[in-house]
């Protein structure tokens, strides 16, 4: 570990045995007797490696179940990796949950000192900081009430105040920004900024992409336990949003057909031949459709359609309509589709491709809504597609 590194995570994996089996002794014994097959395992974190430099703020984004919270728990050391090594340098304070570790029957005051003690901070120092904590949490009149009577906002305010005021070297925050009102939200952001200025290291999980983009130096993008990327906030958030959109369209995907001809691959590219999945309004889109025919197929028809991200068809056509005659195919080959001057509005569009017989009776292979393409557009209009329009005043 180099001197300027605050956190080093090396090839860390965390595997959970899925529940439902072997809870009681009886089941354990029965399992042994039956010599059951391996229980189902879930890789919550799968071979993740990264380092965080001292003074750096790292945002962590990803869908639910991406492993964000598991990662923070590993860094807090409440759970331990199945494989790999985690090193942290300096005192770690973590907010894994609003008011984590608070005891409901104790008063706010007692919980503050409990938290301080858990962090290993001398009582003397906690006394000095106590007023600042109460002040920050805005709980002056309630600090001697049991925390079980607190509202969830008060709870998290106190939790945040303590975690911050214990003056850690590394602060881990899990989705705290989502709770609390706007005023507290701002207070938190200000405090985090102050932390940054003081050269502290922070790891933040949030679904509030705008905030996390503003506050992070770099962003770690996780998906299903795997590291999808680590880099500039804007790039990572773009990738995350892209993935989310693609995921959301998965329900519209369908693959069917006799399989006599298979569409093996579709490559989208611009006029320059460079592969891409984002196209600008008004530009040209090329799609090379690779196929493989098992035997000689006479007069096949290749078709395509474009749908919006809710599965509504915007446009569809085929080689027959376009007047392209393909006498027969056999083995591997490819056809190229060109869409001129894309008229679509900005957003995600789903391409479908198909190959079927000339009389439409036999569908050899259809891939419905399987190819998401992002369209960017700076034009201002409503709807899916741009229609050149002119207005004039009748004289």
């Amino acid at each position: 570990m180099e001197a300027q590194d605050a956190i080093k995570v090396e090839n860390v994996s965390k595997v959970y045995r899925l529940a439902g089996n072997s809870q009681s002794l009886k089941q354990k014994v029965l399992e042994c007797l039956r010599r059951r097959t391996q229980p189902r395992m879930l890789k919550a974190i799968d071979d993740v490696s990264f380092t965080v430099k001292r003074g750096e703020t790292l945002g962590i984004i990803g869908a639910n179940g991406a492993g964000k919270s598991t990662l923070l728990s590993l860094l807090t050391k409440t759970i331990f990796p199945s494989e790999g090594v985690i090193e942290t340098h300096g005192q770690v304070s973590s907010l894994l949950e609003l008011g984590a570790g608070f005891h409901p029957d104790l008063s706010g005051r007692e919980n503050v000192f409990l938290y301080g003690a858990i962090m290993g901070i001398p009582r003397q120092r906690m006394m000095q900081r106590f007023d600042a904590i109460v002040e920050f949490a805005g709980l002056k009149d309630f600090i001697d009430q049991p925390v079980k009577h607190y509202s969830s906002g008060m709870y998290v305010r106190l939790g945040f105040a303590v975690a911050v005021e214990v003056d850690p070297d590394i602060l881990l925050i899990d989705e705290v920004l989502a709770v609390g009102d706007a005023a507290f939200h701002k207070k938190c952001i200000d405090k985090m900024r102050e932390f940054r200025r003081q050269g502290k290291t922070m790891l933040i999980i949030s679904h509030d992409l705008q905030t996390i983009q503003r506050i992070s130096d770099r962003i770690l993008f996780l998906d299903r336990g795997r590291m999808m990327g680590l880099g500039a906030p804007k790039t990572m958030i773009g990738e995350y949003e892209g993935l989310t959109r693609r995921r959301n369209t998965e329900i519209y995907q369908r693959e069917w057909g006799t399989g006599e001809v298979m569409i093996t691959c579709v490559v989208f590219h611009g006029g320059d031949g460079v592969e891409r999945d984002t196209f600008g309004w008004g530009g040209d889109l090329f799609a090379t459709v690779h196929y493989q025919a098992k035997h000689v197929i006479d007069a096949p028809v290749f078709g395509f359609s474009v749908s919006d991200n809710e599965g509504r068809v915007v446009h569809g056509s085929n080689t027959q309509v376009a007047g392209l005659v393909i006498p027969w195919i056999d083995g591997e080959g490819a056809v190229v589709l060109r869409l001129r001057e894309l008229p679509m509005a900005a957003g995600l569009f789903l391409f479908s491709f198909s190959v079927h017989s000339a009389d439409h009776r036999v569908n050899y292979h259809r891939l419905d809504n399987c190819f998401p393409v992002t369209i960017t557009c700076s034009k201002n209009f409503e709807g899916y597609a741009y229609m050149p329009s002119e207005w004039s005043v009748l004289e």
Partner: protein
Amino acid sequence: MWRWRELLWILVCRNLKIRYKGSSLGFFWSLLSPVLLILIYAIFATILRFNEGRPHYLQFLVIGIAVWQFLAMCLNDSLYAVMGNVNLVKKTAFPRIILPLAMVCANVINFLLTWCVLLLYLLLVGMPMQYLYLLPVVLLVQATLCFGMALILSSSNVFLRDTEHMLGIGTLAWFFLSPIFYPVEMQLQFLPSKAAWLAFLNPMTGIAWCYRRLLMSSAMPDLQGVPVACLTTSLTVCLVVLVIGLFTFQHTQTKFGDVL
């Protein structure tokens, strides 16, 4: 470990506070329950004429019961030493061993309060209590046993919830195997004198014997044929339990966060 003394202290206070939370007498229950304990056994022993022909049977019984209760409460509380702090274990990092330790410490404090009442009572009925100054030593040995058991039970209950059910039966069996309401001689008469140490494999035999010996020695007939070896046996078992406990806890604590 020294670093964590404040956390230990806070948790001890919390355990004591939570125990009497909501009750109007609060902490006084720690003093009141031994008084009631003595009263109930006095009435019970008189009505059933248990103390006939047995000098100082009531004192004998009360000491035994108080000593047993300390162990029983530790055993019971240890089930929840870790399980009752899911929030802390899942969300914060600190040496987990503090949880059972704090639980035992809280019970020790409670036990000391019981002793205040008990000693007052023994003084009133004129027990000699010549070796009172050795009481802390016996208490320490018993606390060691309690801590060892707490380590085993608190960690095993996390993984095997059956611990809770097994413990109830186990504690009852242990109670009858220990010379609490009967003198140890009753056990020894089943054993050849050379094998007397076998009875002391149950550490509570040695511990209960020591407490009574220290507080009632001249009033109670001396136990014949209990050599030092017997007490050493009990002490060794206590230490072995502690070592097993430390070992078990150390090896399972990293998985607490996964299971809870």
